[in-house]
């Protein structure tokens, strides 16, 4: 047996080379082994070097002050979820270090009874602190010895009093809690944070990722909402709703040039601080999610389309105002204002028949195109997750459908659709998507042109005339140059429209000489009351809301009342009989 086979058993199987080659192979092997040994030493050195680096790093980290810097004040102050503010920095949603009341039966740690006193005694003590507590239920809970929350939110002074009960098992862990300092204000915009820590309904849901991102949540997110305007809007809507005994109300204030939503309210509201059964049923957003047939507020849109298309060139032209007969259907006006009306009178008196005839002359395709340009055929453009699909009449409109759409029937959209369309109508003709994000100057989207500049200018005159001479008089806040159109549509019910339940809307913009804001207010099923002179129509309930709201929000938004300024309507004035008086 030779050395080679000792070293490598496999070598035995190979053919034996000649002696000289064998000795050469031997020396080669010795060389290879020696090299490998040297290289293993190198490898050891490498590992020692890396380990040395690691150890030096540990020494460096341990003796540096980075260990203390690991808990910085900045980090301690970093909220668990980012703040939401309005456009002026007023906090709308913030984290709040709240206490909760937790029953920990093992707190005593001796395996005996979890409480010092009897469950009945402790329950009575808790009842004295929290009068709304169910004493019997709490007593049963304490007696059962099962851990769990007794109460999710405890105020600091209540926490002190619970402490005084002297029960170790009643623990009050600090839990960061989402707090909405403005209460139910703008609840539909904000939404709330559910128990799983994720936002629901409003911007809390939309911004969820951004608000939870540790790198970003230190900086608050500013919404386009102006809390002062929001407060005024909600106040006036609530007042209008109560005065008219309405089921609900909705309102929106929109910047016509940028599409920013200054205020958005859907009543009744919910309280995001305390979500209960009733609150959950009110989370439905009437402004962006519910679609309505908005009625006569569509007439200015039809007229604008007609002016834009050149169908209405001569404002003195008188249109037939008699009942329209299409097949078996008849389209009538609620009141008669004479055999014929001109365009200005049509809008002032809100004539269905003339609007239908204008639309008929305009043609279904051109009206349909304008409505699509205004985004009426798709869900409204806004960040909120709850956006309603319009009821859109589809592709080929029969003649009768064209006529009903012209005065806002047979098409159902959200109030937000209407507000965006009105903004496009008065701002020079450019439609822009609505947004709830605060936009810096110059950030406004370019939008798309729907109407010509000249059309928009005419519409400002006409809208202003409606609120000077027509159904919008109750909205005409002195000095604010409000212009707008009423709409009172019957709600569809079983077997046709219900004459008694209305959706009354007022869509307005101000100041009409250089429109800045669109305001849309809507009441759901208002009843005739003393306040509205026993009327149900928008002129008597929705329009006065705008009339009271604009003087409140105008100064906040930089619009000063000025009796001497107004849009120039001198060329259209002679068309209105008795306007000069």
């Amino acid at each position: 047996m030779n050395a080679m086979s000792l070293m490598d058993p496999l070598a035995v199987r190979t053919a034996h080379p000649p002696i000289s080659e064998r000795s050469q192979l031997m020396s080669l092997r010795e060389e290879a082994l020696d090299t490998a040994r040297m290289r293993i030493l190198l490898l050891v050195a490498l590992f020692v070097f890396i380990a040395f680096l690691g150890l030096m790093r540990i020494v460096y980290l341990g003796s540096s002050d980075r260990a203390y810097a690991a808990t910085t004040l900045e980090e301690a102050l970093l909220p668990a979820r980012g703040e939401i503010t309005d456009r002026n920095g007023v906090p709308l949603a913030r984290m709040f270090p709240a206490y909760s009341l937790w029953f920990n039966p093992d707190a005593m740690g001796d395996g005996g009874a979890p409480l010092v006193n009897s469950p009945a005694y402790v329950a009575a003590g808790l009842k004295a602190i929290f009068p709304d507590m169910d004493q019997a239920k709490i007593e049963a809970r304490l007696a059962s010895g099962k851990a769990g929350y007794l109460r999710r939110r405890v105020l600091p002074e209540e926490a002190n009093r619970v402490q005084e009960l002297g029960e170790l098992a009643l623990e009050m862990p600090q839990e960061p809690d989402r707090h909405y300092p403005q209460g139910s204000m703008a609840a539909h915009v904000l939404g709330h944070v559910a128990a799983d820590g994720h936002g629901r309904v409003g911007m809390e849901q939309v911004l969820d990722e951004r608000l939870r991102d540790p790198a970003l949540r230190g900086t608050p997110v500013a919404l386009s909402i102006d809390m002062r305007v929001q407060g005024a809007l909600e106040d006036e809507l609530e007042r209008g709703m109560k005065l008219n005994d309405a089921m609900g109300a909705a309102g929106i204030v929109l910047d016509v040039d940028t599409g920013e939503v200054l205020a958005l309210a859907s009543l009744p509201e919910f309280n995001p601080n305390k979500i209960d059964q009733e609150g959950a049923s009110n989370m439905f957003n009437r402004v962006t999610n519910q679609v309505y047939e908005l009625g006569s507020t569509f007439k200015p849109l039809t007229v604008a389309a007609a002016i834009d298309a050149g169908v209405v060139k001569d404002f003195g032209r008188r249109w037939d105002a008699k009942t329209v007969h299409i097949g078996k259907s008849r389209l009538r006006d609620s009141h008669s204002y004479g055999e014929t009306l001109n365009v200005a009178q049509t809008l002032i008196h809100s004539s269905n028949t003339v609007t239908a005839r204008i639309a008929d002359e305009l043609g279904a395709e051109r009206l349909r195109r304008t409505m699509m340009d205004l985004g009426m055929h798709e869900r409204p453009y806004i960040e909120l997750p709850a956006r309603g699909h319009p009821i859109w009449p589809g592709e080929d409109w029969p003649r009768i459908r064209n006529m009903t759409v012209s005065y806002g029937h047979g098409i159902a959209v959200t109030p937000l659709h209407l507000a965006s369309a009105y903004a496009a109508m008065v701002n020079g003709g450019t439609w822009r998507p609505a947004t709830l994000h605060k936009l810096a100057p110059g950030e406004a989207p370019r939008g798309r042109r729907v109407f010509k500049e000249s059309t928009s200018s005419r519409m400002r005159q006409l809208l202003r005339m409606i609120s000077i001479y027509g159904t919008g008089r109750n909205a005409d806040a002195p000095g604010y140059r409000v212009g707008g159109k009423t709409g009172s549509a019957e709600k569809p019910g079983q077997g046709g429209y219900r004459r008694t339940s209305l959706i009354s809307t007022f869509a307005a913009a101000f100041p009409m000489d250089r429109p800045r804001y669109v305001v849309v207010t809507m009441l759901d099923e208002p009843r005739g009351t003393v306040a509205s002179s026993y009327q149900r129509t928008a002129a008597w309930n929705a329009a006065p809301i705008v009339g009271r709201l604009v003087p409140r929000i105008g100064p906040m938004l930089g619009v000063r009342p000025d009796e001497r300024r107004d849009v120039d309507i001198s060329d259209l004035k002679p068309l209105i009989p008795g306007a000069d008086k």
Partner: protein
Amino acid sequence: MSIDQPALNRSRSEPPRGAASSHIRNLRIWWREVDRVLLGLIVLLMIISTIAVAAASPASARRLSTSAERLPDLYFFWKHLAWQALALGVLFGASLMSRETARRFALVLGGGMLFFMFLVPFIGTDINGARRWIDLGLRFQPSEFLKPAFAIALAWVFSWRMRDPNLPVRAVSLALTGVVVFLLALQPNFGEAVLFAGVWAVLVMLSGLSFARIGSLLGAGAALITATYFIYDNARHRIDSFLGGGTAFDQVDLAERTLLAGGWTGTGFWLGLKKMRLPEAHTDYIFSVIGEEFGLLACALILCLYLALAARVLMRMIDEDDLFTMLAGSGLTALIVGQAFINMLVNLRLFPSKGMTLPLVSYGGSSTIAMGLMVGLLLAITRRNPFLKRRTAGLAQLMGLGDEPARGRASIRGSAS
């Protein structure tokens, strides 16, 4: 007589009297031959692992709980205990093998796992956007089991040179490595790919590649990493965040906060707070959890344990005079300790985040078994008859400092020389 048949004079023990006694005899031989210091280091690391996973388990269990299912705090601890018990069994079983059996076993295992690696793109399971797992009732990563087999197979290929210096061992080994790395890059699993390429680099260096070539190899490695940087978004993000300090509150940053939160001596067992916010607390960042709860001194100790493991095996390998054993032992050590060092350096922010676990310590599921197999094979490879005293060249002689060594280093093979 050969090296895998210990030259121990067994006539002293009683003649075989049946299966049971032969098992006992085998065990006694195993106990005499196995590297007990290495075994002790491994067992010590596994005990540390049990404690560390117990510390990290609540953090990961709470993080991975959903509203539908709430994991108990020690969920990962109990599972880890079970895996560790299995891994110990595998470790023991593998270390019972003789060197020769270990080599054959590794080649068969390597072939099988390579086959599964080819199947992964087709029947693999996706987890977190990477397709690395195969589900055959039990879910496992073929690449984890391929690791030990790969090191041994490469060592075997390189040792062909001993029979015929003209065999193209480098080309064969490079092709083998290329295939494995390519399959890993497909998954994608760059951490593992780097490890496989690294073990090849170590073995090609040990097999006597000239320093000029090693230099160009390092250059090629640097070029490859640069290329990955530009081609793969994932790699770029990790390297960017490493170089640029990263955004606050990314994983690495959270890991450092956790690591440092305990100071030199730690907050104490189960008293850490920062770990709760750390993703992958029980796997990639367990070193940071150890830092928080047991202090930086414990971290330094663990680092030294890995170094001791490497030094122990490698210094013993210098004494070997079989190239295959030297290469296989060094390759396996490089794999284990290399991965451990990379993981620890990531935790210490000296290395970009790699997505690598701390071998033997991290929670790993089926990869704990793979790790048990790996150290078991290492123990098998490093088994040595303690009665065979070799008088090899001392370190001083190797470096040319000492006296000229006597011809015929091992006393038992003096006759042939």
